[in-house]
């Protein structure tokens, strides 16, 4: 398995995602924001967390217009899996590959804490644990999931809700913590599975994510 890990200026979880991929024995292919890549060169892409382009303009907005994301979109069209984590989730929404948008937490502050999420619909590509409820940490200032009513209804009815928080930590509509595209090969979540790989990190529910 060859995992492409995207780095934008300001990405700060790329090396953590590299470690996660290597823990599974996967080969990592670094993908630089300024470059297009051959979609045949990787089997999966992860868009990691951080502050791409310093969150200038709007979280994920500039990253969504980068060269590398053009290739990520092409790759997704071939049916290969794409995982977004935290800022990666924001970016995938900004590209239109995922529905909805992530806005400022309702309490207005950055929040770092362990949360519990519940699997609503699963995908064959990610989060292959049998556990229905997972304990994963979040760390974000803008993680409140939002969509217009009609779009939200569609997300729900089409089985695109991936995870819900069991306790709403940021004002997300319908407690949504993660969503997928209709084809279920593009999926993203606000919590960080790469920060919950081993018990010493405080929990290992993130281990079986990829």
């Amino acid at each position, binding site marked *: 398995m060859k995992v492409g890990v995207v780095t934008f*200026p*300001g990405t*700060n*979880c790329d*090396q*953590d995602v590299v*470690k*996660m991929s290597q823990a599974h024995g996967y080969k990592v292919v670094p993908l630089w924001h300024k470059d297009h890549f051959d979609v045949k060169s990787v089997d999966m892409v992860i868009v990691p*967390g*951080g*502050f791409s*382009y*310093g*969150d*200038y303009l709007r979280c994920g907005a500039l990253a969504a217009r980068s060269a590398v994301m053009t290739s990520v979109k092409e790759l997704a069209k071939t049916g290969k899996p794409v995982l977004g984590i935290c800022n990666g989730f924001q970016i995938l929404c900004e590209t239109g590959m995922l529905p909805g948008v992530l806005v400022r937490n309702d309490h207005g*502050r*950055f*929040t*770092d*804490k362990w949360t519990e999420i519940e699997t609503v619909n699963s995908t064959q590509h990610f989060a292959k644990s049998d556990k229905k409820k997972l304990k994963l*940490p979040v*760390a974000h*200032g803008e993680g409140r999931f939002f969509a217009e009513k009609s779009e939200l209804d569609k997300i729900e009815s089409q089985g695109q809700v991936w995870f819900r928080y069991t306790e709403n930590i940021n004002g997300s509509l319908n407690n949504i913590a993660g969503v997928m595209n209709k084809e279920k090969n593009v999926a993203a979540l606000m919590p*960080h599975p*790469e*920060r919950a*790989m081993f018990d*010493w*990190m*405080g929990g290992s529910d993130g281990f079986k994510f990829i």
Partner: protein
Amino acid sequence: MAERTLTEKLKHYRISQNEYERISGLLGRPPQGLEWALFSALWSEHCSYKSSKVHLRKFSYRNGMTRDDSDENAGVVDIGFGEKIVFKMESHNHPSFIEPYQGAATGVGGILRDIFTMGARPIALADYLCFGDENAPRMKSLVKGVVAGISGYGNCVGVPTITGYTEYDENYNKNILVNAMAVGLIEGQMNLASSKAEGIGNLVVYVGAKTGKDGVHGAAMASESFDQDIDSKKPNIQIGDPFLEKLLIESCLEVLSKNLVVCMQDMGAAGLTSSTFEMASKGKVGMDLHLDKVPQRDSSITPEEILLSESQERMVLVCVPKNLEAIQAVFKKWDLDAAPVGTITDTKKMRLFWKGDVVTEIDPTLITDSAPRYERPFTEYQSKRKRAKVEAVSNQNQKQLLDSLKQNAFYKNKNWIYEQYDQRVGTRTVKDASQTLSVVRLNSHRDLAISVGCRPSFMRMDTRIGAIDAIMYPALQQAIKGFKPIAVTDCLNFANPERVEVMTDFVTTCDLYAQIAQKLDAPIISGNVSFYNETEGKGISPTPAVGLVGLKENDERVPDCVFTETGLDVYLVQMPGVISYAKTAEVLKKEMSFSGDLTVNYLADFVGAMTAFVAKTKPQVSRVVGQGGLALTLDKMKSAGYECSMQVDANHMFSSTSFLFEERLYDFVFAVDSKTRGPFEKELDALVKKWNLISHVLGSSRKGYS
């Protein structure tokens, strides 16, 4: 513009008459042109340590893991297995009081640059904050702004903030303290980078953000007391951009790892002046510097402003000419400037050029090494308070007292602060700020503990006890989790050193820190002094903050600090030392009182014994009793509905309110699985006998009602 009179110039550049005469003597003539600005910045207290240097020399103790690199940006500990730890703590007090968000944010940025300029990847941040009474003017917005500033900067650069200390006391109403500590790691193929300029003909390259007018005279400002007019100082405040810092971290580490660089130095206080003059002076070389080649944000900027600007996220490096292209390619990749601005010469002079003309030519050592050294007057330390029998501090019952203490900002749960910090980025965090000891895991499968120390109420109670506690309390917190403290950094925050009582507290602290570092075998490898924390003649109480790093040579489980299961046997172990009402008395607005004393030798040896005891007995839970005494500590140890049931009998000391709330240096709580009770008690008995301790069975953990 009319030429300023000498008096006006001295005032503008914050240079004293005596210093003016010393400068004139060194130069053989009065200073002229840009020289005024150079001396103003680098002879400031902030840059020159002129009031403290004679005492900081006492921190010379080194061991096999440390070496004398006191003229580098931060200290280094070689912990073997190809891993080196680099760390330092620094203050950003004055800017944070004027503009809390930017002050705190740029404090974090500055300390990070001290770490990665040495080739170390920053892996953790800690903060040490002292605020005034929460109802004092501006205080709520200062607290909010400082926390948001640390969060905004640290989170974006991707370095986890994993621990801290937060004080609230009226002594800081008009001078808050914002100290940040950064810890870096050098591993693999990475080498330690130097800040010593070398190689005649080598290029001086400016990298990072462009230079603007922000922070001009910042170093001189930070070396003065505040008066009423703090708004006028706002233009001295630097503005930070953590996104640029993140790019700077990656690009600097990349050129260092590719061995493209001779030396590197961040631009901190006094910006380009201090970085280039120090590099030249350390390398005993000259430097030609073309100020007009410095990338500028504002075309109206003057040479003096370029020299003194404290614009953030800038570094200067030296390289052999053939590497320039490769260096520029790396910085271009990260969308940063890398502009050659000068060359290393054999003249031993700094020559500053502006559009081709020499504007100043001066021996850099006059600026960096010839600042006056003041032996400020001090006396032998006399305890501020008499030792007396400690009486109950309140006639409230236990529950009322506990509840009223918990209403106070100091004793309130501070998770609201730490939840604003990303504590896990980098995926090394084993124990986060919700724990009594924060721990990160190294690739060598060893654990590193990071603590901050200095409990200001004990300093206010008695400077000697407070200073010993400042290092010993975090050392014991590490030992009780099985860690050995390996090195110390400090950030010595004091009021005006020209006052005898302030200098006396400062010297007393330095003497004790030097002694403790040696006895504990934990050298003081880096540090910072912040004087003049004073407003309108009223200074802060002495606050010599400490950062302590400890090592555990394995990745075995770290004992919990709260009860998380039932049926554990709970022990209280007491050391003969100090009994006091310090913080609790302050919170209740009562007189402080204390009896007893602390001894450095005994405590230093005991830290080693405690590390060994915990490594051997592996208790389930362990904790040093903190401020507010056993009552507050046991309350904090409740978790998920588990608590300690006390074996209370009517005459027993555990039912005495006084006993429960006394702050004793030091008491310890352990909880062990009943199955291991036998071997634990055997080891405990030996410890108790050898160290003259008292041990009690406190009770057992049970499912609580809360």
